[in-house]
């Protein structure tokens, strides 16, 4: 019998938790959601639990129960801060945990995003990444006013974007990530010389134009920010559908998926491997994470009832793209070990309510996983990539 291999564990942070009524829990801090302390506390808690990384949710659209439209509800959390800035604010107050903000690729500038994440990598000492998100709503497009996302109909109404457009948006995201990565590589690691004798600050032969020309944009480069500590910070993508799996296989280091059972986990992993082959992926295989929404208590009934209570407060049962688990940390640990056997490398847990479910993860679930020999006992001094078993990428522009 071989020793069980370690699994990776991350937490997705979003407002007061992933249940829309989570802010109404007695231990919630709904008035603090825009305060730095709230985010520092959450990420420090995750770090206390030795987790691999946190992601910080974001969207250019305000929260809504309606896809692609605003709603008139006043009983759910509305409003959020920019995730890259939250990540930067939190970085110097932590020392080991990875920090991955969600970043929209549709209306934003790859040049700005590249230097922002490179700088996050500097301020965190090699713990940065990004989760690339495609924006496919007309609502978000109108906030920028630069282009239309949907096609106007004869009667003036706008339809949801069609398949061709969605494909195009994901192709654009792939281009975006390509530009971001090239900009990260545009400075060789030893480009800074500081040669007092010759008066040269950099070796200009080691700073490169990227000269990217694609169907969606062209970017000259080089970046203004030198190559970050990890070489290339971690790129991740959430994927449910083929077009997103394809983006992950082309562009990402890590993919978040939403299996609902061991069988589904199996099939998702094979789908991803097939996409990797189809795209001719080079280098390390995609790390496959499973996303789970979790409600954790000492016994299953308490967890189920707590979720029900929140459902009642919200007026409807929680819906999620991910599997919703309500139960004990021990049972969750069992499930995680089981899916791991289907090829899942790690998990990103979306706590139903913060701080309760976050603390149940860091205090109880982590212990249950450690007892099963599948989770670390302490942090080693590693970059985020190294912790995930990924090498530091070679620089494409460096001469061998």
């Amino acid at each position: 019998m071989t020793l069980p291999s370690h699994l990776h564990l991350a937490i997705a942070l979003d407002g007061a938790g992933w249940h829309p009524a989570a802010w109404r829990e007695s231990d919630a801090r709904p008035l603090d959601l825009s305060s730095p302390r709230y985010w520092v506390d959450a990420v420090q808690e995750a770090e206390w639990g030795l987790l691999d990384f946190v992601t910080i949710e974001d969207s250019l659209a305000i929260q809504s129960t309606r896809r692609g439209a605003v709603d008139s509800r006043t009983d759910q959390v509305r409003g959020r801060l920019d995730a890259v800035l939250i990540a930067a604010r939190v970085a110097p107050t932590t020392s080991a945990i990875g920090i991955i903000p969600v970043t929209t690729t549709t209306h934003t500038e790859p040049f700005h995003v590249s230097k922002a994440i490179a700088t996050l990598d500097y301020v965190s000492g090699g713990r940065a990444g990004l989760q690339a998100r495609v924006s496919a709503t007309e609502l978000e497009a109108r906030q920028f006013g630069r282009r239309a996302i949907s096609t106007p109909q004869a009667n003036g109404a706008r339809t949801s974007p069609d398949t061709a457009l969605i494909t195009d948006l994901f192709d654009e995201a792939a281009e975006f990530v390509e530009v971001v990565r090239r900009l990260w590589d545009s400075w060789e690691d030893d480009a800074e010389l500081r040669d007092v004798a010759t008066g040269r600050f950099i070796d200009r032969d080691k700073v490169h134009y990227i000269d990217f020309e694609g169907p969606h944009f062209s970017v000259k480069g080089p970046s203004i920010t030198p190559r970050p500590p990890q070489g290339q910070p971690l790129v991740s993508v959430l994927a449910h559908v083929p077009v997103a799996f394809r983006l992950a296989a082309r562009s990402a280091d890590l993919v978040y998926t939403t299996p609902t059972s061991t069988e589904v986990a199996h099939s998702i992993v094979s789908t991803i491997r097939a996409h990797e082959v189809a795209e001719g992926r080079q280098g390390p295989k995609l790390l496959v994470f499973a996303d789970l929404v979790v409600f954790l208590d000492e016994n299953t009934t308490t967890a189920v009832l707590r979720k029900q209570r929140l459902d009642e407060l919200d007026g409807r049962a929680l819906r999620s793209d991910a599997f919703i688990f309500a139960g004990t940390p021990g049972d969750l640990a069992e499930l995680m070990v089981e899916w791991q056997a289907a090829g899942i490398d790690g998990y990103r847990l979306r706590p139903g309510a913060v701080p309760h479910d976050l603390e149940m993860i860091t205090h109880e679930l982590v212990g249950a996983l450690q007892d099963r020999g599948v989770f670390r006992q302490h942090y080693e001094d590693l970059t985020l990539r190294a912790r995930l078993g990924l090498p530091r990428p070679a620089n494409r522009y460096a001469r061998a």
Partner: protein
Amino acid sequence: MTDRPRQIHLAAHFPGVNNTTVWSDPKAGSHIEFSSFTKLARTAERAKFDFFFLAEGLRLREQRGKIHDLDVVGRPDTFTVLAALAGVTDHIGLSGTINSTFNEPFEVARQFASLDHLSGGRAAWNVVTSWDAFTGENFRRGGFLAQEDRYDRAKEFLQTARELWDTWDDGAVIADRDTGRFIADSTEGAFLHNGTQFQIEGHFGVPRSPQGHPVIFQAGDSDTGREFAAADADCIFTRHGTVEAGQRFYEDVKGRLARYGRSPDDLKILPAATFVLGESEEDALEQSAIVRRQQVSGQTAILFLEQVWNRDLSDYDPDGPLPELDPDLSEASIVKGRVPVFDDRMKTAAKWRSLAEAKKLSIRELMIEVTNPASFVGTPLQVARQIDQAVTSRAADGFILVPHVTPGGLDEFAETVVPLLQEWGRFRTQYEGPTLRDHLGLPPAKSSKTARLAINAGAT
């Protein structure tokens, strides 16, 4: 009112990517590692400075078609560094340059509102309007903007950002568990802007931040720039070598405020200033001469000369005389990615020739003479008096100090000059409020409600 003497405002500028920054100094540290930013910001905060200032560049500079390699090259991202600094400081304002040409108002408004929240009300935005096609090559839209349109875009950009910041009321987040009401009104954040530069609508996602609006800086000495500042800015970031020039500028800009219903104190005039301190005046002058030679190497002198001659002068000896041939007056500049420092090429060349002849100066000596000498040179007492004098005589409301060594270049100033200004009652000994507006004595941003109603009325 009290008889409190006119207060001086002081800020720390992180050393930039021009030759003012002496990277060859053995004490010079990294311009990228976060520890350098932390060190300077904390030094400035210990000295009770108003704010920390970070500049921005969006394309590496080039000369003769090659990336400029003699000065510091490379910078981190402005927003990311400022947000991270908010985590290692408690009081000092965090000011950054963000371009209005290669960004969109929805995104920048969101970033500054977030920074203001994450710093507890310490954010400031220096609005710059670089527009050139050279920089545009790094962006989706390329160099889309004509030079003459840049202020139109900047003005409407800022106005749009202000509208977005006003879309949330101060008390919009209620979070009442009993009634289940999180926000006061489902229309919080709703906006519609129909202008010539921007036609946008939607929902702004960031609740109103502690300062309401971040402090707004404008840098630029042109008439349009001054008018823009008078209408819309809280601070103006300028460069004026002498007290007299400073006074003229001060009077001119402050004189424009009444037209916009603003009082002279509503806009602070803060020139950038360099300094060299010494134990005696002679020592300071000697130190200053050393620094000038570090700042203007032979190679740098040739590059400066090329900016006026607009020719490749790499074969000339910096320790020799000026070129006999005249400047190339064609349009195409051999310098890219930086603001032109010298005006009329023929006139400048003529002036330099006569100066070099009169004083028998080599190219390098001449460049040391004609480019950016330190603003303040002397003993701590002398420098404190010069600063005091400049503010008393209304040449400035304070200074943005630019150390020439990263990150320790402010230490001596903080330890020796600041205590004198404090002793004289001219500079704070402790922060009096949590926000940058408090430090600068600026009025709070206008009530969001009023502003929003006005927009809605305008939109119908």
